[in-house]
């Protein structure tokens, strides 16, 4: 058994008005239709002449038919109002709609992030190979002003980089290259960038 709900007066009144409209319109349709059927019956005895009675019946039927149509249109308006009320106040379905939308958006976001992470992993592998190639080539042997590949690329975007942040990778790169240089006898094939001042061995 449903517990008695305490609705705001306006909503309670509104729903009661919907009920009333429904009952009135259905009653109007049924009554007018019944009266039309009754009026269609031809009486043998009439108070006025048959022609007058016929005219009267004709007019009455027109009015009742118009009443039926008006009641039908009123029912359509009631259905429209109910649709609007449903969209605004049917919280279970609104909640479900919101949850489903959130789910869709979240899954789309996760898919985007998954693709980005996969892309990042692939690029880091390629970057590793590129750095291997670069640091084993002759173009990495040069002066200490040479930047690591990633630093050289990022420098195009960031105009100001602190010297401290540069010196660390520089020192690391220089130390690494000095080991590689001492072991390599021939310079590798010319790098596309032509970075650096040519093969210069650090000893």
């Amino acid at each position, binding site marked *: 058994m*449903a517990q008695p*709900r305490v*609705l*705001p007066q*306006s*909503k309670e009144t509104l*729903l009661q008005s*919907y*009920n009333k409209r*429904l009952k009135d319109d*259905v009653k109007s*349709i*049924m009554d007018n*239709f019944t009266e*039309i*059927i009754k009026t*269609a019956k031809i009486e043998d005895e009439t108070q006025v002449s048959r022609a007058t009675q016929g005219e009267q019946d004709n007019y009455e*039927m027109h009015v009742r*038919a118009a009443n*039926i*149509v008006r009641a*039908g249109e009123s*029912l*359509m308006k*009631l*259905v429209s109002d*109910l*649709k609007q*009320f*449903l*969209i*605004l*106040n*049917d*919280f*279970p*379905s*609104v*909640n*479900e*709609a*919101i949850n*489903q*939308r*959130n789910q*869709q*958006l*979240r899954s*789309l*976001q996760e898919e*985007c*992030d998954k*693709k*980005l992470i996969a*892309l990042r992993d692939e690029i880091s592998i390629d970057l590793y190979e590129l750095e291997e190639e670069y640091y084993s080539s002759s173009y990495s042997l040069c002066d200490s002003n040479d930047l690591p590949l990633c630093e050289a*690329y990022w420098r195009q975007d960031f105009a100001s980089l602190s010297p401290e942040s540069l010196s660390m990778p520089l020192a690391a790169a220089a130390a690494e290259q000095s080991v590689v240089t001492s072991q390599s006898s021939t310079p590798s094939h010319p790098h*596309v*960038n032509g970075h650096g001042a040519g093969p210069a061995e650090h000893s």
Partner: protein
Amino acid sequence: MAGFGVANERLRALEELEREIGASLQSAGSVILELSKEKPQERHLDRQAAQFGAAVAKVEAELSAQIRYLTQVATGQPHEGSSYAARKSCQLALNRLDYARRRLGELARAYEVMLE
């Protein structure tokens, strides 16, 4: 959308009721039309009258049910739920993707320029 099941079901039921109201008026009109003939056919009359009665009864019953359901679920408060947060996160994810695509495009263009 296929996802909004319950909400659309009730709205579709109400649309079906609108069609039913139209059908009931049409049945009433065909009954009156049949009565206006010189020799109305009883079977046709009875069928149309039964259809009219059934349609009106169905409309009344289903509309009453909808109003009863609304009496149970309506709270009188505005709904404050929103999917804005999820939409914003998704938009940011799409922006990240777009940014990554642009950067890769720039890298590819830089590579082509250097190849030339």
